[in-house]
């Protein structure tokens, strides 16, 4: 009897606590969504929590009309798609080669890769390398340095290694080359790890802003969405929003909160749309990668 009551109390406590945590995680996003959909002058009066008081799409209209912002969005999408495609392709090839037990350089190459997780030159030497390679203010600076992440290679290699040997062995005996084994057999049964790594790479590219700030801030034609948002965060909205004939532009310039909320939403929503579909995969992918037998 006593125990049942104790369990009941524990359960109630547990559910309430977790629900509160869930709320604390979601609330800031809901709050920004409400602000982004609310009239700027009205927002200044305060009191916007879950729902907009004076609905408007003007904030979004303004940022989408803004040529610089729209182009930044397009470049962010291009960077993410290109970077993810290339990154996934290169990671897969490298991980497969390193997962082949018969590969004679396997041990040496593994050491070369794993050591990079412990030793790195640091921020300034890397910056000067990028300069010397003439990658400054060049689109390639977004793609090349991030092409291979050793962490991702290790996760994928671990996944390939735990696939049953029999599948690939028989194909090899039938005379299939490594490329054929990889693309016709291994990749067919590797959807969990492929989507996990694709998600990691894509999120990394989409969220990246420091390389934009450090290596490409001089070239306006390379500005990405995240960096633009960072500029709104630190400076005023003046530099971002030009006077494009709207009556409310002045108010928005003086009170960048709405525009900031709208850009934040544009930056965040793509992730929220993609991520739930991949969740079942990445939990498995991570667990396999982290806990290798």
């Amino acid at each position: 009897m006593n125990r049942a009551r104790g369990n009941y109390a524990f359960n109630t406590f547990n559910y309430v606590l977790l629900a509160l945590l869930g709320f604390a995680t979601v609330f800031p996003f809901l709050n920004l969504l409400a602000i982004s959909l609310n009239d700027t002058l009205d927002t200044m009066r305060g009191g916007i929590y879950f729902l907009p008081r004076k609905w408007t799409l003007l904030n979004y209209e303004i940022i989408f009309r803004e040529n610089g912002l729209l182009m930044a969005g397009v470049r962010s999408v291009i960077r993410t798609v290109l970077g993810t495609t290339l990154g996934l392709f290169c990671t897969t090839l490298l991980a497969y080669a390193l997962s082949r037990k018969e590969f004679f350089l396997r041990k040496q190459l593994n050491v070369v890769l794993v050591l990079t997780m412990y030793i790195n030159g640091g921020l300034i030497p890397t910056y000067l390398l990028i300069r010397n390679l003439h990658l400054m203010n060049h689109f390639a600076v977004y793609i090349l340095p991030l092409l291979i992440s050793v962490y991702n290679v290790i996760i994928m290699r671990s996944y390939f290694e735990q696939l049953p040997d029999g599948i690939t062995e028989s194909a090899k005996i039938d005379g299939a080359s490594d490329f054929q084994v990889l693309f016709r057999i291994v990749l067919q049964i590797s959807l969990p790890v492929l989507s996990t790594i694709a998600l990691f790479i894509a999120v990394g590219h989409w969220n990246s802003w420091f390389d934009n700030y450090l290596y490409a801030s001089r070239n306006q034609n390379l500005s990405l969405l995240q960096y633009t948002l960072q500029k709104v965060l630190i400076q005023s909205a003046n530099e971002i929003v030009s006077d494009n004939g709207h009556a409310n532009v002045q108010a928005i310039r003086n009170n960048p909160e709405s525009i900031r909320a709208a850009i934040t939403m544009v930056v965040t929503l793509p992730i929220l749309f993609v991520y739930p579909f991949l969740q079942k995969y990445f939990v498995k992918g991570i667990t396999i990668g982290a806990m290798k037998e």
Partner: protein
Amino acid sequence: MADTAKSLVPSQTEAIRRKPRRKQSLGGLIASQHQLLIMSIPFVLIVILFSYVPLWGWIMAFQKYTLGKGILHSPFVGLDNFKLLFKDQQFYHVLRNTLVMGVLNLIVSFVGAIALALLLNEVRARFFKRTIQTITYIPHFVSWVVIANIVTQLLSPDGGTLNQILVQVGILNDPYYFMSNPKLFWVIHTIANLWKEVGWNTIIYLAILGGLNPEHYEAAEVDGASRWAKMRYISIPGLMPTAILLLIISVGWIIQSGYESQFLLGNAMTIDYSEVLDLYALRYSQQLGDYSYGVAISMFKSVVSVLMVLGVNYLARKTNQSRLF
């Protein structure tokens, strides 16, 4: 799954239990495995370019480097940069910030993730559990730019949601400018980090808890153990070996704990508490053009970090008998 959790960081040596095979000449190997070489060598070269070549730049720490002369023609000055570094008051400030924020993050996220995993593990309603998991993973995928934006918005003195609530409830008379109080920076930074990563960090602990032997729970059930007792005597001991190992490993990475969040959350008023080693190196290099000094800081950080990681791994290996890398 529980016993596989022993070696957390995959090792490159353990998998090589090769069968003896007949000797092949190098040329023969290259010919027969040329496809594997094509798949790997170009990408390893890219890794070498972006991870090893910068190490060459460490030479600058011993030079008076100028962009015009480059590494090959800049004059050597011996250990001057390091002597300057160890006399620099600001350097110790920045080192302190790096270490304190690293330690705070480590402890808070370690405790937070384990607590959350234990609580989630007790939830029987599967839909509720999965919903909370899905929700708490989200901030991990959101950029620090967005998080900084959210924090700034919540804490803003004009119209910030937290200030509005605190004033309405009557705790504060006037809105408070949280972000400009340097003393609060570490707290805000740690909470923001916890909020962003706590859900994500539970994944590994939930996997271990899910792999614990159900018979233990059933036996405890028969013996009349309460939920607390089961948590205390089965779940937590089951979690501990891996958790301690993870904690030990993370200690090695304290000094490496990033600079994006500090860059974005910090401002001119909090810089004494928010600036970390990398940002100081960057500021020195960019504003004063003294790249040698910046490299000396980067090099100091890398060397200390490697020593810490190796030392910690050595300790972990001694106590745990399992190799970490």
